[in-house]
């Protein structure tokens, strides 16, 4: 008997508590940056495409909704020729972001992706690539990697000595 009233009391009290649900879509909530929503491909601080087409995100994706093809520019820089995410399959688990060694692929707080047609949920590189660094400023994979690309000669990466002169006999 008593517990019945206690329950009623709690319900009544809650009617006057401050609301946490938001009147979406009239009011837009502010989502924390670590929210796992719409996926983007970012650029490095120098404006180059960050994705190096390593296929790690596609390999880790549990629903296999990332497909890409690697290509190389004339100077040896790797990039994805196409990069496709089928968002009608994506479960926003964020594993792709975790696997990415270059901070290229990032999940963003964007959640408004609804479409009337499933086909419209297939995003190509043009739809994914943004012009900024996203959540991770500063990092440029090619500054660390040993690969030579345009504007970065062999031995010019961070933490590298200039190339060895093989014909040199100095100890």
């Amino acid at each position, binding site marked *: 008997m008593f517990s019945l009233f206690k329950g009623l009391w709690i319900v009544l009290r809650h009617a006057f508590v401050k609301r946490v649900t938001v009147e979406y879509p009239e009011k837009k909530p502010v989502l924390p940056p670590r929210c796992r929503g719409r996926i983007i491909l970012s650029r490095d601080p120098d404006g180059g495409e960050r994705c*190096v087409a390593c296929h790690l995100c596609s*390999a880790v994706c549990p629903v296999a909704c990332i497909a890409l093809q*690697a*290509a190389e520019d004339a100077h040896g820089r790797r990039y994805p020729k196409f990069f496709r*995410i089928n968002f009608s399959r994506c479960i926003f688990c964020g594993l792709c972001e975790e696997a990415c060694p270059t901070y290229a692929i990032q999940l963003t707080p964007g959640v408004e992706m609804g479409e009337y047609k499933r086909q419209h949920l297939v995003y190509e590189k043009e739809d994914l690539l943004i012009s900024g660094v996203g959540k991770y400023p500063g990092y440029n994979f090619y500054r660390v990697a*040993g690969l030579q690309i345009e504007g970065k000669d062999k031995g010019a990466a961070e933490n590298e000595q*200039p190339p060895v002169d093989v014909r040199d006999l100095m100890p």
Partner: protein
Amino acid sequence: MVATLHIDGAAYSVKEGQNLLQACLSLGFNLPYFCWHPAMHSVGACRQCAVKQFKDEKDTRGKIIMSCMTPATEGMRISIEDPEARAFRAGVIEALMVNHPHDCPVCDEGGECHLQDMTVMTGHVCRRARVRKRTHRNQDMGPFVNHEMNRCIACYRCVRYYRELAGGRDLDVFGWHHHVYFGRQVDGPLESEFSGNLVEVCPTGVFTDKTLKGHYARKWDLQTAPSVCVHCSLGCNTIPGERYGELRRVRNRFNEEVNGYFLCDRGRYGYEYENSDLRLRHPLRLGAEGPRPIPSAEAVSYVAGLLRNGGRVLGIGSPRASLEGNFALRALVGAGRFFIGWPERERALVTTALRLLREGAIRTPCLREVREADAALALGEDVSNTAPMLAFALRQCAMQRKIKVAAAFGIAPWDSDAVRLVGQDEKSPIFIATPCGTRLDDIATRLWRAAPEEIARLGFAVAKALDPDAPEVPDLSDEAKSSARDIAAALREAERPVVVSGTGAGSPAVLEAAGAVAAALRRLGRNVQLSLVLPECNSAGAALLGGGSLAGALSEVRKGQVDTLIILENDLYRRLNAEAADALLAGVKHLMVLDHLANATTARAEVALPCATFAESEGTLVSQEGRAQRFFAVHPARGEVRESWRWLREIGMAAGQSEMAAWQTTDDLIQTLSQEPGLSGVKEAAPGREFRAAGQKIPRQPHRYSGRTAMGADVSVHEPPPPEDRDSPLAFSMEGYQGQPPAALVPRYWAPGWNSDHALNKFQGEVGGAVRGGPAGVRLIEPAADAPARYAAEIPPPFQPAEGQWLVVALHHVFGSEELSAHTPGVAQLAPRPYLGLSPEDAQRCGVGEGDPVELAVGSSVQQLPARIIPGLPRGLLGLPAGLAGVKVVELPAGGRVRSVTGGPP
């Protein structure tokens, strides 16, 4: 001898004297290593394979030893898991990683990198070194191999492989201490035709596949299936990989009886013809304004109509098409009207070769037996160019002597550096007689360069020197006599001699001579084997199937007996000279051609049907060893492309041949085909379509295959079901049995912790030895044990160079002579330009210099070619590249005349 080995307290039986690393790996332990390789054995260079050895059970301190350099002995106690041994191994990796670039994401080795695997195995995760990394500049090594020197861990495998096993000279190690550099003296294409194996031999991403780089996909993203190389008659086992409907690369599939751990570059890189723009993708019908695509049904009913209306039909098969395709064509047109599409001379050569192997008492060796032979005689065949992996095997045969010498000092065969040091320049006796210099010359004990007849006579003379009952060779020079005696003496000494010859010289007498030498050795009771190279991947199969040559087809056509001609995967303009081919094709009313690539023959076809390549279909090829081997579709044929036999079946059914309706699957066809005499083994070549491993199909896709729900989403977001494979126990899917299937069905090598091809270790009973369950393929040809060794009756007269008259011989080129691989950009780049080879003496006599235009006339065929002066080519011989684009087809050897175009007649 079996020894008991105590590993971490548990007792195991291992082969005594075997090195501990191999023993541990064979027992299934994960012990990291770099410099050791099952085909190159131990040098103890990398220190990665350290384990701890204890004196006895009371010894608790033990000492670190290199497992790859220590033989297993009875009662030995070692520990893999000992903390000090583990720390030592982790330390080695950490040291190697100090200079290793931060490249994995952009490294083509990533995902199948032995260094990655070993790093994970030792547990090294974090770079503590605070030094700057040393870097290197790369070299351009030609169209096949990419070089990224920063990634080197200095294991020395590449130079050991390239110089010692493959016999290359142009790759070496330069510099010293931690600056060592593995490369060429200057940039330039690698010279060895086995350079592609560097990609698999190098445990890191220094050497990677350059053709793959052009359309890169990770190993885990490749759909793969067991396949067989179609670029020569040896039938090396391969694993081609596909992604997005395109073939991306070919890797080695281990078959200890065939190619072992390696492939030649023609086999590895010849695959790109499959992606060529020349591919036929639709049925074509020739109209007034050229060929136009027509629907498949229309093509089938049109051709069927021609057959149904009492049309007299003739079929021309092909030695490069599968047994299934040839058999289906034969069934369609009738055995009497089926001709294998080879010239009469080639038919005679191949049947001679097959007769020697089938009717004689001499066995044809598998390539392992050639590798293990201790003496060899190569008669007339330039194996480096016609059957490269046989040349590779002969190189291993040359090393057998070193192993034997070392054994006398108690040195184990796996102690590779000691064997090399003790063996010094010792090599097994290898005699090579060819019309022109070969790339095997450096291992030859003695060389002869002579016209094919002379080579045959030398062979017969060797037989005579071995066996007095052999026929006498008339008019033999003293020099030839003494040469023959030397060869005979060396072969007589050998325990396991092989005689190698083939159809490359174009002379049946050479084949007979090789048979005679083998027969003579056999009569002496020697365990001799005879390996005969054939022209194409299914020459043996075509010959077993039987059927006349193009000469027969031509005579039928001449008689006006043919309304419709069906040509299967065969470009007649490569077999016959243009006039003869024109004459043949002009004599028929209707021409139908099935092929993969557009060529001169398909251009003439009234109906051309697009047929599936080796990577899109299942079929059987018979190698020169007589080994029937099945290749499986790597990916389903797209669009209207179909297996040849399926086209032929449809046409046959539409034309009223109801028995063809029973061929629902490849297995049904193979069942029928196996009833042919000599072909009963074909159905055993691989498990049939009903086969299941643990109740499941074998998946062509690895369990990490990515992008399934996105790769086709640009076209439609609704994923189609995976294509069904009703022909084989393999599936176009990642679902199924990921364990080890029988060897003929192995689609890739992978094992937990072993992402690189070294996962093969886990597939072998003893590491480096046979795959569990035995090698793939079935030998169709075994010698009759009691057959008497017989000699050919005819011995050709000596070759005499006549004034103004030359003997034109075919010179084969590993790159360029074979039809399909020549459509691969890299192969085309390395193929020679057309030329006519002259000996320096002849060139001087004719006043011709290198590159000067000369005119070659053979019969009625006249062509102009730049001269190439070939030192060592005997006087009176002209060398014409075989099968090279831009060189007119002439049947060789043949008499010819040459004249300098600028300087008038010589």
